């Protein structure tokens, strides 16, 4: 993402932050409105579209047959990928995923994996030989910041509504994706001394540090990632964790359309 942000805009965001305000009028601790639709792509085993403010992301789940990892012979395989394709923003380019996209996919993957959201043991057909492989692909269409939370919510919604296409492969009836947890990702940006949740694109462009926290239904932490060159203090991290748990409950309660 381009580092070129006009000084006037940067100034403006800093000045607002110093007064406890943001460019879109939100308080520091409020997310933009999030809406989630699912089952929107026919050929996909699961799909979702998430709008977080103006950010618009599609997520598709495909399930194929494959061989398990040698050290997990009785478990299916989960793979999460994200691409920042040029359709979503003028600064995105074609080509293989660059480090920012790799980071996004790995952080979203971590939340799903570490919360044990998918019972991978139920995706084993023949130990050591044949398992279902679940591919989650995240495609931002309109990028206005915080792809971590929009992409994560989309991945979770798409997986929750996905089916395993057993019939197509001749292994009995189709069955729902074995889901047993609902992880929620909440991301913070630090601008100067101010920490705010769910940064907009402009806020992202001027922020010094980023913190993503994934919590589960019990309010336990499942994954975390500090990003960008800035830092967080111990006290800030504790505060973010409290807020991530609280906001996580609200996001978990969003009705899927």
């Amino acid at each position: 993402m381009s580092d070129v942000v006009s000084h006037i805009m940067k100034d403006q965001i800093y000045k607002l932050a110093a007064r406890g305000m943001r460019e879109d009028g939100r308080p520091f601790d409020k997310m933009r409105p999030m809406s989630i639709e699912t089952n929107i792509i026919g050929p996909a085993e699961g799909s979702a579209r998430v709008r977080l403010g103006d950010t618009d992301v599609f997520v598709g789940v495909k399930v194929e047959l494959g061989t398990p990892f040698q050290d997990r012979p009785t478990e299916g395989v989960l793979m999460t990928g994200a691409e920042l394709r040029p359709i979503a923003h003028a600064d995105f380019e074609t080509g293989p995923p660059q480090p920012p996209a790799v980071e996004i996919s790995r952080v979203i993957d971590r939340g799903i994996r570490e919360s044990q959201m998918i019972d991978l043991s139920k995706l084993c057909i023949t130990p050591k030989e044949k398992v279902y492989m679940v591919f989650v692909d995240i495609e931002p269409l309109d990028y206005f910041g915080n792809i971590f939370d929009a992409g994560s919510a989309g991945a979770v919604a798409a997986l929750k509504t996905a089916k395993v296409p057993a019939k197509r492969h001749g292994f009995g009836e189709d069955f729902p994706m074995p889901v047993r947890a609902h992880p929620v990702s909440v991301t913070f940006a630090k601008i100067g001394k101010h920490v705010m949740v769910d940064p907009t694109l402009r806020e992202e462009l001027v922020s010094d540090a980023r913190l993503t926290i994934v919590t589960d239904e019990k309010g336990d932490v499942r994954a975390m990632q500090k990003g960008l060159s800035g830092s967080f203090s111990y006290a800030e991290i504790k505060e973010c964790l409290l807020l991530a748990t609280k906001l996580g409950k609200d996001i978990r309660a969003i009705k899927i359309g």
Partner: protein
Amino acid sequence: MNEMGGGSTDIKLIDEKGIRLDGRRVDQLRPIKIEAGVLKNADGSAYVEWGKNKVLAAVYGPREDHPRHIQDPTRAVVEVIYNMCSFSVEERVRPGPGRRSVEISKVIADAFRNVIFTEQFPRAKIDVYIEILQANAGTRCAGVVAASVALADAGVPMMDLVPACAAGKANNQLILDLAKEEDNVGQADLPTAIVPKTGEIVLLQLDGHLTPDEFDRCLQMSMNACMQIYELQKDALRRRYATSANDVVETEEAKQ
């Protein structure tokens, strides 16, 4: 299927006395050896042995960044390349940057970018190469520790050295500095890097399952360990430059 993040917990990692498989207490680091200035070509270098991890870091630069259009006219560009040697683990690692290495390289570069006084070197580039020769869990932290000693050895001006350490959970107990056997069946891992002077946290990742209270204790444990490692880093630099200082004295004496 068990509740844990990392797999089976049948293996007993900690005995009744709180002693781990390798004889450590729950809050004890593995033995760490740091040596500064181990390579001749690089502008700065460091070698770290951390338990069974063997990690080499080299710094080139600040040097001219090219092609010119990627230069930053206001500060030096910092690039980190973390690489696991193909022979560093049991099963051969396919050479080249995988997604894991790309992410680790990025978070380490992010950790250093604001610690280095990059604005002193506009248009320049500082390359940090981290080679994992032998891996036994905790390589990104060992890499950060080696890289910051190598940066200091290269004379790159920095706010402070950056120590790093992980804490985590295995066998339902919070433990410091997970070794391979523990990480394999562990329930959580929290690598952390700090700037000791300010207490800022510049690298933080977590995977696994911790309650908020456990998270807090893990973070404190890893931050405390960082302070121990900080002393080892300073000591490595002192040893390196004490020798060269002696050399100078000796040559001066020889002249007389």
